[in-house]
């Protein structure tokens, strides 16, 4: 069964550093998303990406965050100048129609 692959599985970074989280979407999917889940809280939407541009973003997705699809296969989330409150599980998700999203296994980001 096709999978969404995320790397790394765990990243520890110092406060103020930049991190890049990577995702390899399912090949025929057209819509890409980033969600996050702070420990013990809901899964929250960050951003959606379609046709090489952001189609929707949440209030969480401020200037600190950016997304891109640099080489037509990988889909990345960059967090500039990380803060302690950015510590969370970050999930990439993809879909190709009005069907269930397929989520990756996530990257656990720990900011110290």
């Amino acid at each position: 069964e096709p999978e969404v692959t995320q790397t790394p599985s765990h990243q520890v970074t110092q406060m103020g550093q930049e991190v890049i989280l990577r995702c390899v979407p399912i090949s025929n999917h057209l819509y890409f998303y980033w969600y996050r889940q702070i420990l013990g809280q809901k899964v929250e939407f960050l951003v959606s990406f379609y046709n090489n541009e952001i189609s929707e973003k949440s209030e969480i997705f401020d200037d600190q965050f950016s997304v891109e699809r640099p080489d037509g296969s990988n889909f990345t989330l960059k967090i500039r100048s990380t803060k302690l409150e950015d510590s969370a599980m970050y999930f990439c998700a993809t879909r190709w129609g009005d069907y269930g999203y397929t989520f990756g296994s996530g990257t656990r980001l720990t900011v110290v």
Partner: protein
Amino acid sequence: EDQVTQSPEALRLQEGESSSLNCSYTVSGLRGLFWYRQDPGKGPEFLFTLYSAGEEKEKERLKATLTKKESFLHITAPKPEDSATYLCAVGHGRGSTLGRLYFGRGTQLTVWP
């Protein structure tokens, strides 16, 4: 404000003891109600999508139903391997396409032998 509320927060069942999880929602432009299973430290695993009131879907010991205001996930004769957090999410319509998902907090299910 769009909201998804799941109950109970936690549920402990003995193996074989059937029960139901509830998801109530208020959202404009509903474009699907989704059920996911999440194991600790993992991403949500897709179970079902329901689109309209009256719709039902089944998979092994799970059956999902949908009304205009809520959805139920029925678990029949659960086994310990069904232990997980079950997440409900609603898809928000944006024009002709599906937009973001709004998730509930989930129901943590524990099935003991």
